[in-house]
């Protein structure tokens, strides 16, 4: 990942959109119920810092959502990476897992949400299963691609230095596949976060998705917009964290 200077046009566009938002609402061109002015959203932000809305303060919603997504994502990673490796190493595992993964992967999580409620109830478990299942597919697919792309020369080199098969897996295949595994985790985390609102449709009492859904039921669009902005900012923070991990753990990516 190259460190690039911020493109000035990205800044201009952001400022332009904020200006359009401010002016259209300020000049009364748009009904504030359809699009609340920036000031109203900011006031909502300030009130929600200390007082509860939809069952919790803003901070409480953030903690609840980040915790749900983090736990679901870690679970998906703990299953997806080993399963992806096993699928590349064993014809039997590949034969068993491949049809399942390929079938559910393109399904929208909302389509199988009812089944998950029936099977896992309406608690934390159901929400984390929904989010985890959605994040699992890209992690498995990238891990498989990473393992499959390890050059034979690397494995052969280790074998002709006296390595045993399990050592080849641990000391060659896994580190060599790490760049693609991290790419898969990056996509998986993005998918997990974007499945959040669907997950929090299930009898949630807190969380950013729950907050947005509640606000939309009461047509309180300032809270809706606030929730969207916070969800977006946290997504960017996740993305930056994974890119930092990429630079730290796979500095050779694109150079070897």
């Amino acid at each position, binding site marked *: 990942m190259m460190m690039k200077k911020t493109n000035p046009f990205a800044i201009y566009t952001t400022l332009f959109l904020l200006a359009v938002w401010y002016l259209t609402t300020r000049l009364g061109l748009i009904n504030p119920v359809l699009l609340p002015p920036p000031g109203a959203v900011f006031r909502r932000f300030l009130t929600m810092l200390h007082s509860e809305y939809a069952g919790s303060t803003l901070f409480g919603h953030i903690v609840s959502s980040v915790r749900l997504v983090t736990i679901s994502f870690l679970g998906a990673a703990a299953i997806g990476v080993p399963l992806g490796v096993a699928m590349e190493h064993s014809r039997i595992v590949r034969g068993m897992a491949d049809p399942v993964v390929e079938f559910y992967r393109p399904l929208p999580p909302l389509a199988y949400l009812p089944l998950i409620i029936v099977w896992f109830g309406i608690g934390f478990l159901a929400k984390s299963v929904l989010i985890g299942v959605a994040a699992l597919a890209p992690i498995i697919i990238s891990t498989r691609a990473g393992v499959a792309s390890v*050059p034979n*020369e*690397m494995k*052969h*080199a*280790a*074998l*002709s*230095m*006296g*390595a*045993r098969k399990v*050592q080849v897996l641990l*000391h*060659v295949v896994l*580190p*060599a596949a*790490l760049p693609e595994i991290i790419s898969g985790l990056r996509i998986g985390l993005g998918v997990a976060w974007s499945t959040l609102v669907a997950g929090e449709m299930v009898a949630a009492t807190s969380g950013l998705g729950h907050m947005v859904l509640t606000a939309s039921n009461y047509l309180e669009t300032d809270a809706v917009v606030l929730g969207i902005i916070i969800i977006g900012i946290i997504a960017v923070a996740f993305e930056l964290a994974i890119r930092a991990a990429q630079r730290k753990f*796979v*500095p*050779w990516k694109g*150079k*070897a």
Partner: protein
Amino acid sequence: MIDVGMTGLSVRHMSLEYRVAGRPPIIALRDVSLEAEAQEFIVVLGASGCGKTSLLNLIAGFLHPTSGEIRVGGKPVTSPGADRGVVFQRNALMPWLNVLHNVELGLKLTGVPRDARREIARRNLALVGLADFACSPIYELSGGMQQRVGLARALTCDPVMMLMDEPLGALDEFTREEMQVLILDLWARSHKLIFMITHSVEEAVFMATQLIVMSPRPGRIVQQFRLDFGRTYLETRDARAVKSSTEFIEMRENVLDIVRATTR
């Protein structure tokens, strides 16, 4: 036939066939036999498709012959092992390890204690002229330096023989000549048996003590030569003089004619 006994390489009546259902088998190698004593420098030359890389992979133990037998140091080859160090053309160093950690990896995996393996690795890095680069990341080295790391790594487990699969194939002309001389020096100092593949006729004639010319469809040995231009270089230290001598040029043209004839 020479008795290679407990130290050399012996390949006897070896064939390799690939069978695909419903098609006639593809014969990658047919009845290949060769014998070499310890401390020889075998170079295999041939057009692409002549099976030279298959032959190397069989000796390394990465492939299994359909019939025939391979012995290295008296022991039959059944799988890859630390008695045969391999140098690849590319892609074989671990980019997540620095130079020293790459070179010591084999010893680490076989349980050699840290100080002992560091010492061996540093000594082998010095042999290839990379003593000052022990802590550099692999991806910051030039192609020629990466191949030197590969050589040092292949030496580290102290193998009976070294197998080199077009080790200089991806290098530019100048680096290539430098590396030829480095490998000859390494060979003279380490007293290893070397088995090297190349598609450069000049390189083959310059380096080999035993030159093997192979021909494609089916892969087989068509001619073997005993040469000593490499030893002449080691005595005179003048590669240009060796390569421009009349005997060298005659042999080079002779070998070139044979290789050309195999591709017709």
